[in-house]
């Protein structure tokens, strides 16, 4: 089994951060595993699995130019995990309604009480300044039946909730 660092870079969103970072790693002979990049509210974050071939201090020193150039914060830890350890979600929850405080907290707490494990969550605010609406999409693993999850969210009367099973066909 290979050993991996999880490298996280966070900062203001600017073009070419990923290209610069991965080029430095490639030139130093580092191999990448899985990667995930996100942009939100003008900020940027990327998580990169980097094979543990260098000491941590050397890896950090290697990336110092990109950290300084783009004013990023860098976090490096050794992880237990390996490639291909994706948990596959079996339930998707979509919620939308007029924007108000507490939607995410109420939905996720109700799901947590039913043992729902959130794997992905993203949300967006749409509409106008005067009439904003909120959209929340959650994917996760549930052992409780669909009806029970629906019941758990039935009290949220001011938002639309749609819960569906995610099943993948192997073709």
């Amino acid at each position: 089994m290979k050993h991996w660092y999880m490298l996280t870079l966070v900062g203001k969103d600017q073009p070419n951060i990923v290209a610069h970072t991965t080029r430095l790693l490639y030139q130093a002979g580092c191999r990448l595993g899985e990667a995930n990049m996100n942009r939100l509210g003008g900020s940027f974050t990327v998580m990169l699995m980097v094979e543990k071939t260098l000491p941590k201090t050397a890896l950090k020193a290697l990336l110092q130019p990109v950290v300084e150039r783009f004013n990023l914060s860098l976090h490096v830890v050794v992880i237990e995990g390996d490639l291909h350890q994706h948990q596959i979600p079996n339930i998707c929850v979509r919620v939308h309604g007029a924007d108000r405080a507490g939607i995410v907290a109420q939905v996720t707490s109700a799901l947590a009480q039913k043992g729902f494990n959130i794997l992905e969550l993203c949300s967006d605010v749409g509409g106008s300044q005067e009439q904003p609406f909120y959209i929340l999409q959650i994917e996760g693993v549930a052992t409780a039946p669909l009806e029970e999850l629906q019941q758990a969210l039935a009290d949220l009367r001011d938002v639309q909730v749609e819960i569906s099973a995610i099943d993948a066909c192997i073709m």
Partner: protein
Amino acid sequence: MAVLPILTYPDPRLQRVAEPVIDFGQNFQTLVDDLLATLRVSAHGVGMAATQVGVLQRLVIVDVSSKANIKHHGLQVLVNPEILDWQGFASGREGCLSVPDYIGTVIRAKKIQLKAQDRHGQWREYAMEGYEARAVQHEIDHLDGKLFLDRLVSKKRDLMLRQFI
């Protein structure tokens, strides 16, 4: 009947375009039976294209009858299939027997009008929808040397589509 080995990505044979079936003789009948036998033993498989067993002929089989509460035509052998019309779009999860251990989100037409020959060469037309339509589109892609990996979309884009379409 023989269970055939399934090619897996990145085998370059998966990216070649299959030839139309002209001869429906004994060799072809054996191929159909072998493909059926291979699908039957594959875990959770709902369809298979001849391309996946390394035979470049325009033959696919689909059988989504294991899925609950959906419309379908049962087990179908589709030879020289051709999609005549498409309606609507839906995103959904797909996996592939030739791409083990990977599930991705793909946009496909919701409903299709299909023309195909049966295993004896008789032309038939089908109206298909939902999973069955998705499976047929996936299998026809195999005949054209395409994998669902060529059509992946991000889930965030899915959220945007729901928002704006």
